[in-house]
């Protein structure tokens, strides 16, 4: 069980070289239902996303890391799959 730190997403976002808008678009592309405002609030830790939203954002970031030649460094809410 991975309980990410509040600023985890925003740090990952910066590491992934994504603007907040770009991350939201990727999240939206993956079927995310939260607004750009809500996603920003998740990034800042001002709002806590649902587990599903958390994982969609994590996956949006992870797909970006894959594009950059990395793996899936951002943990999911439950049982992250071991490599």
């Amino acid at each position: 069980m991975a309980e990410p730190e509040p600023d985890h997403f925003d740090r990952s976002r910066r590491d992934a070289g994504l603007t907040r808008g770009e991350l939201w678009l990727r999240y939206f592309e993956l079927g995310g239902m939260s607004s750009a405002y809500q996603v920003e609030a998740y990034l800042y830790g001002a709002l806590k996303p649902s587990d599903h939203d958390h994982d969609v954002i994590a996956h949006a970031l992870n797909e970006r890391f894959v594009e950059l030649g990395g793996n899936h460094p951002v943990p999911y809410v439950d049982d992250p799959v071991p490599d």
Partner: protein
Amino acid sequence: MNSGQEPAGRFSLSVDVARSEAVVSARGSLDEAGLVELVDLLDYVIAGRCSAVILDLVEVDWLAPSAPAVIASAEQQLAAESRTLSIRSPSTSVERRLVAGGLGQLISDEEFELMPMPSAQSAAIVARVPDNADPHLPGRFAEQSGASPTDTDLVDATLRLVVELARTTVTGADGVSVSLRRHGRLATVAASDRTILEMDAEQYAAGEGPCVDASIKGRRFHARSLEDEDRWPTFTPKARALGIQAILSSPLVAHNHSVGALNIYSRQPWAFADADQALAMRFATEASAVLTDAAVDGTDDGRSERFEASLRSREVIAQAQGVIMERDGITEVEAYRVLRVYSQRTGISLRARAEEVARSTRPGHPSLGPRREGGPRG
């Protein structure tokens, strides 16, 4: 008093902070000295936690020229934190100054003479009523048939999502629609039900109404109680005949051009409290941002390929979720997780996997069979 000249300055300021919103009220002639105090007050409320700040300029009869810049700065600070600033201002001269300062979108009251707009009569306004007005969320209509949705469907699907979110979250909202100017005409691209479609269509036909005004003039129009409403004499009786008592139309703006409106209708007069108005503005702002992103060159129908691709991606993922839900007898969220875990394990993008799964159900394509590519939790 000549509103163009600075009167002998006398002003007063007050602030009222509730849990979720703060109302900063000014009276009299807001000169430079008044602005300095206004900045202090705005800083004070911005430092607080309220999500909506209302700047009440109803009793301001003169505004210093630098006021719009001061207010815009406060709005930017708030917007950066996903908070809103709206302005109440019934005085024509005050409103002119605000609109000239680029703040027209923030103005939330309407009890004043409207500014003449050169384009107001030039746009042909007709209704385009879709055959199917159900507010399907994106992802649902793809399950209805094997046909690929058209580009217009894909863009409109996002607006239907906005409609649905607004309808369920704005207290007092009995119906919601989005009007967009396309090919020089206003058309309803998303509506929560047929009555709402009719409401919009009546406004297009009459060439008047809060939706039409908000779409053309680029600022909010709020008919608090249609019983007392006299701005739209042709439209208002028709709305009341259909049981509508209050309407809140917020402008949609793309690339600084007004392109449409988010319309919220209620069967109750005085249905929309300040917090609901702020929420409506937030939805409109967000829809505007999406439309701005989507517009290629500021023309009515311009949409970026990227945005269309995003919508297609959502559709195909929803379609694949549907396939997996049916195949494995699991929930939507679990089906999503199946796709996500597969993507995580293989490095194949979630969208690419969704395309494979969705394609597997088409005639002539070998089925993926009972294999579970990750399985639900546990």
